[in-house]
């Protein structure tokens, strides 16, 4: 059942892929016998054949995931999305602090320890990666603005 569902979703995507390959992709001019559209066409046919086979003989019947687990997974994905959205606006330190604390608390770390972990990960991570290893991490728009205004004050 689940197999068929997943294969169905993939089939829709593959059909869309195939339609684009057969109609939309076209090189304005070309000298080679195979253009940019041929390879996607071949691939889409292979993929559709595989998907139809899975429809014919599905082998996974259930996901075997409890409802509470679904909830936990959904929450994790939501946190990851929030983390990516906040990464630049809040900066690495703050967003990591929030994300680390939230995920750690949800996974049963206890709120105090989660907070300690989040803070440590945010601050130590920034010091290690941005300062010591010189990697490019966002300082955060808020912090940058604060820094700028203090710079201006210092200059004036």
């Amino acid at each position, binding site marked *: 059942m689940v197999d068929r569902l997943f294969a169905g979703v993939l089939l829709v995507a593959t059909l869309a892929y195939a339609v684009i390959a057969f109609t939309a992709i076209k090189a304005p001019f070309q000298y080679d016998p195979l253009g940019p559209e041929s390879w996607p066409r071949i691939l889409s046919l*292979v993929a559709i054949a595989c998907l139809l086979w899975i429809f014919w003989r599905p082998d996974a019947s259930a996901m075997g995931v409890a409802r509470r687990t679904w909830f936990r*997974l959904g929450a994790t*994905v939501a946190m990851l999305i929030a983390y990516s*959205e906040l990464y630049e606006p809040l900066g690495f330190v703050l967003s990591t602090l929030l994300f680390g604390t939230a995920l750690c608390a949800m*996974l049963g*770390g206890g709120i105090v320890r989660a907070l300690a972990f989040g803070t440590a990960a945010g601050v130590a991570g920034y010091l290690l990666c941005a300062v010591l290893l010189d990697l490019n991490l966002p300082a955060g728009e808020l912090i940058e603005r604060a820094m700028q205004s203090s710079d201006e004050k210092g200059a004036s």
Partner: protein
Amino acid sequence: MDAVLSGLATGFGVALDPFNLFLVLAGCFAGTLIGALPGLGPINGVAILLPIAYGLGFGPESALILLAGIYYGAEYGGRISSILLNVPGDAGAVMTTLDGNPMARAGEAGRALSLSAVASFVGGTFAVVLMTMFAPMLASFAVTFSPADYVALMVFAFASLASLVGRSTVKTLLGATLGLMLATIGIDANTGVARYTFGIPDILAGIDFLIVVVGLFGMAELLTLVEHQVAGRLKSLPVDKSFVRMADLAKCRWTIVRASVIGFFIGILPGTGASVASAVAYGTEKRISDGGKTFGTGDVRGLAAPEAANNAAAGGAMVPMLTLGIPGSGTTAILLGALLMFNIQPGPMMFTQRPEVAWGLIASMYIGNVALLVINLPLVGLFARMLTIPQHYLTPLIAILAFIGIYTIVGNPFDLLLITGLGVFGWFLRKLDFSLAPVILGFVLGSLFENNLRRALSISGGDWGILVEDYKSLTLYALAVLVVLAPVWLARRARRMDGEAAADRG
């Protein structure tokens, strides 16, 4: 032979540079730590650390040496969680649990760990020595490959992948095709036509390889950890003071040699990695020497065989990657992608064009093997500590590392959403028994496959007959058919023999 010796000299010159030597050691250490983490296998470890290693801005040979150290170390570390926790870090370590964990439960954890370290060392070193001899030979033969032969080689690679990896052939094939399809996104290099970009500027250049790797492996792994989350810590068996005895080594001598040979040659087959090798080695050893039916209850040979094969396969998988540009396993597919990011096209020309990279890597594997043995014997207690890191710290840490790695590539927050999406997709694939290695293999080989096909047809002016003209292509197609049909035939024969045996008894 001269070429090999002078190549090795170049290689050791690169690898013994103090900075590179430090990187080998650091990579091995970090790799062992990651490999020892419960549930986090080598492929996920390399996937998570790859973007960070890339972001550090080292030269290509240094970055590659670091990554190879991590890969090697992770293969080593994987056995620790198999033996002490009975939780294999990846498919390749499953066989290690069969005899390793019973030994630890019998109070001989130290003996099991040190024996497996020695077996891994012998297997790994054996593979590197064979690789040193074979790789240049294979490379000089591969120079004569035409585009049509490359197409055949690719077909063979995917055929052996489909028949040997994963539970369902069709699902593996579909996974590889999905990878190939993902690789078509972006601007076509030959004509400049944008394919499947839907006007999103972020993916005009194609989806970055690092994003696919970290998404499909790192993030999907994270979701799996969340799914299987258990409160508190896992119960780890204590590491005691027992140590491997000479008698054990004498008993395993031939086991280790046999398993190393099996592991190396299975590792060379494109698409098959440590998991198949360790399973075959264990099976063979059981058939040969399980006279007293002690396998599965803590027999030293049952532990040594998969461990030697495992590490020999890790070395063997490097051979097709370095000489043909076709990776032998999921993890080497990631290393291949890493080479491509440094604008180095792995393949037959690499030994002549970039000898310092090719030989530096090989030399660093010699050093890495020794370093791992030296690190592992005394420090195993420290690595075993890693097992008790609670999941609720480990899981967020993986996400944070993955985000740091991806953000540092180009500083685009859109990529972070992309890895999350790919992680969800990868989790579904894993849940439904697709293996992920074919997807990444398809993704890495996508442009190579397409370009060679197009080039071959350009040469022939559109005549598809060119694909089956040469004896090399024909041999490869024959091998592809063989590798697909052989398991089916063997299974049928085994069933028939079972049936006959049952009939005899009845």
